[in-house]
């Protein structure tokens, strides 16, 4: 993958084209350009990642197809909501989770979650993919298909350097 070859605007266009229409979350620098691109589409800056999942759950009940952005530190905050709300109530939600602590190269506070996150995603049985800058449209299409097959949480994980 070529570092920084995908812009936030390009990813936002793919998300909109594949039917995602409610955007909320808590920022991470790795997806700053995506947040900027989603702001004109009603992005709601939440106070906490699990509250963003609550907001997304309400939006889904009201007919929307939501996306929740977060750093993987916030993924830790979110686990109960993912398990006892989105999953068991079959509420569609695309999680866009940044991969801080990727390959053990980051500030100390990110290393434990950075190493454990793939196993946590698998243990929670959350379908997930690493976002590929060269195949972002296909990755978003995959997420949409998974959500249509079984409404619930689905994740696209964003390592450093994928988004410009």
């Amino acid at each position, binding site marked *: 993958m070529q570092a920084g070859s995908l812009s936030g605007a390009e990813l936002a266009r793919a998300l909109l084209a594949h039917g995602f229409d409610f955007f909320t979350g808590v920022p991470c620098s790795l997806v700053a350009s995506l947040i900027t691109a989603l702001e004109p589409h009603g992005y709601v800056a939440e106070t906490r990642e*699990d509250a963003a*999942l*609550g907001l997304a*759950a*309400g939006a889904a*009940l*009201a007919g929307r197809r939501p996306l929740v952005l977060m750093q993987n530190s916030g993924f830790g905050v979110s686990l109960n909501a993912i398990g006892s709300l989105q999953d068991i109530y079959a509420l569609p939600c695309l999680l866009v989770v940044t991969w801080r602590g990727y390959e053990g190269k980051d500030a100390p506070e990110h290393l434990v979650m950075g190493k454990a996150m793939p196993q946590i995603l698998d243990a929670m049985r959350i379908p997930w993919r690493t976002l590929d800058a060269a195949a972002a449209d296909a990755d978003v299409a995959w997420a949409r298909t998974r959500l249509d097959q079984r409404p619930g949480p689905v994740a696209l994980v964003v390592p450093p350097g994928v988004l410009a």
Partner: protein
Amino acid sequence: MTAPVERPCTRDAVAALLPEIADHVLVCANGFLSRWACALGDRDASFYMIGSMGLASSIALGIALVQPQVPVAVLDGDGNLLMNLGSLAMTGVLAPPRFRHVVLDNGVYASTGNQPTISSRVALEEIARAAGYRAVARVRDGAGIAPALRRQLAEPGPTLLLIETQPEAGPPAPRIPYTPPEMTARIAAAIARLAGAAAGTR
């Protein structure tokens, strides 16, 4: 000297408030609140949260943001609200005009054995006021619930009504009889119906 006011139990408080918000989408916090709301006045437009403690108000806010013309109420508890005080800030800032927050404050985590919360020392309704709720009130007696709620319903939201209650002495209400996906399907249909009706009357 007047007699001390008797706080209503959760069951009586829920019974008093449900008729006032019968035309609202209702999101009920997990625990005994959901069970009483289901036992005393189940309907399609009610959502019973069985997990994700703290998030009832966030779920209700998500509905209200997408369908601002549909009246939405959240039946919250003191323990639930203390777990997600950030939702007061979000609701106050986003200010959906038909959003009604009702907090039953029994001062305990009832469904885990009545361990005390800190709510007796925190004016939760004043936090809501400071966060931007348009009107807030606190009631301490069962007879005051319906009039206080009616006053707020006549005003633009978001509003918050805190009702001081006492823990239930009798047995809890039965568990929610629906599976979570059943609850999702029926409230989604109810919201769509109410949104269509609201659009038709504009």
